[in-house]
């Protein structure tokens, strides 16, 4: 379990704290979406989970390991994988397979074991044909998958994704979201930073941040259904929900709280069957 206990963090030279009074728990296997306006502290918060930054006050523990203790950092970085916004700056190897092998190399695994693990992960991602390719020759979606493979090879319990669908076309975006769903099914805890309400559909829980504070923490459906309070941040509804509400205003009588295409399909099918 990830336990954040009343943390406060301020960047050097900054007038306002990046994070203040944040407390929460994220359980293993939970899918948490994290949103908020630009500069509200989302990325700083997930950097705390990987011990890239440590709180000025308060504690962050990952499965009981305190991020303040440097002796825990290696294990914490194995437990919590991080996917950065721009995969170009995350891929460090000269070839795809070398990049994937970077993490196990840092754990000092023997070369034969690294090769076996790299082979397995390339196979599971269907990336065997890219093994020897240089990173700059890959498409945006492929780069994203390679960086995800580089994180997964460490066998993490949680993965923090910082806007993983940024810079991707529709196909790449669908592929990455499907991959995240699959990982969640396998029991890996997902922390997903996104601005897009449609991308949050699979999340068990939604966290909203504003000016370094956690202003909402609850089920996605509850937050989207409830009238949004005046907290300084308004979460835009998914386009499918907007469409359903628009249809209702035109005289249709569809359940208003629909947030996914599947739910909308079922509801429209129900209505049409009844009309026939």
């Amino acid at each position: 379990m990830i336990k954040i206990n009343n943390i406060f963090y301020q960047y050097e030279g900054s007038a306002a704290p990046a994070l203040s009074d944040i407390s929460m728990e994220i359980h293993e296997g939970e899918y948490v979406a994290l949103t908020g306006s630009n500069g509200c502290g989302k990325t700083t918060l997930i950097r705390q989970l990987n011990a890239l930054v440590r709180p000025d006050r308060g504690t962050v523990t990952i499965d009981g390991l305190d991020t303040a203790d440097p002796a825990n950092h290696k294990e914490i970085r194995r437990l919590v994988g991080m996917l950065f916004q721009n995969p170009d700056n995350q891929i460090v190897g000269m070839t795809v397979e070398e990049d994937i092998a970077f993490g196990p190399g840092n754990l000092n695994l023997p070369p034969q074991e690294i090769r076996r693990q790299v082979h397995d992960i390339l196979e599971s991602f269907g990336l065997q044909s890219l093994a020897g390719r240089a990173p700059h020759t890959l498409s945006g979606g492929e780069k994203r998958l390679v960086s995800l493979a580089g994180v997964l090879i460490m066998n993490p319990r949680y993965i923090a994704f910082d806007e993983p669908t940024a810079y991707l076309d529709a196909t790449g975006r669908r592929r990455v979201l499907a991959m995240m769903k699959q990982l969640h099914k396998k029991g890996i805890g997902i922390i997903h930073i996104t601005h897009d309400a449609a991308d949050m559909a699979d999340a068990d829980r939604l966290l909203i941040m504003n000016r370094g504070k956690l202003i909402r923490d609850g089920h996605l459906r509850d937050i989207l259904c409830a009238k949004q309070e005046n907290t300084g941040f308004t979460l835009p509804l998914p386009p499918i929900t907007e469409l359903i509400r628009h249809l209702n205003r035109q005289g249709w009588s569809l359940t208003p709280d629909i947030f996914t295409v599947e739910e909308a399909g079922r509801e429209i099918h129900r209505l049409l069957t009844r009309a026939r």
Partner: protein
Amino acid sequence: MITLGQYINNNSFGHRLDARVKILATVTLSLLIFQARGWEIFLISSFVFTVCFICRLNFFSIWKALQPLVWFAVLLFALHLFFTDGTVLFTAPYLPVEITAEGLSRGLIIAWQFIALALCGVLLTMVTSPSDLVHGLTYLLGPLKYLRVPVQDIAVMVSMSLRFVPTLLEEYDRIKQAQIARGSAIETGRPARKIKSLAALIIPLMVSAFRRADDLTEAMEARGYARGPRTTLNQQHFGREEVFALLVLGVLLSLVLTSQFLRAPFP
């Protein structure tokens, strides 16, 4: 698309060889090239061309890689040809230029040495992937760690630099296009304006490179990187092919050294 290096794996004998052997062979050949005279030049040249043939390298791509250096070799040849004293072979009419036998032979040797050295370097990069090259060098420089030289960290730095060369070149191209779209005279203006516009290109490129370096450091840390020993995917292999290659290299070395000893037994 920007490509880095000239390595294309065609699984030839030369491509399969362990990088350490190839680096050792290149260093040995380079030393021999500096010492070679007379028939040794023919021997080493034949050896290098045979290696190109065995590695199934395209002679056109070798020529393309060497082309930018040929002018320098011509310049070296001309300098020695025109400025070496000795037995006059030819005097240019109306010009204070004399061509001597010594100048001609020295010019030819120097130009050959230069081209042969460059060819060895090109050969090495054509048959060895950049990562194998870095790992091979890391191994060969390994003993330096006893002198507290952080060989592994240097290897990570070198491979990281090589990894980001194409990315930065792409970035350079993007910034250039953006500046041209905004009316920059980087391609069309007078030289003075061009130089001035260059600043508008270099500064954003530097800023972007530093930002990338910051992100990269974090990404490496997040994946458990810390200074000190680490393992890699690359396994060095030393088998029959490597032994054979070293034997052939040994024969070449003995032939050249014997020839040099016979030429000047008591230096």
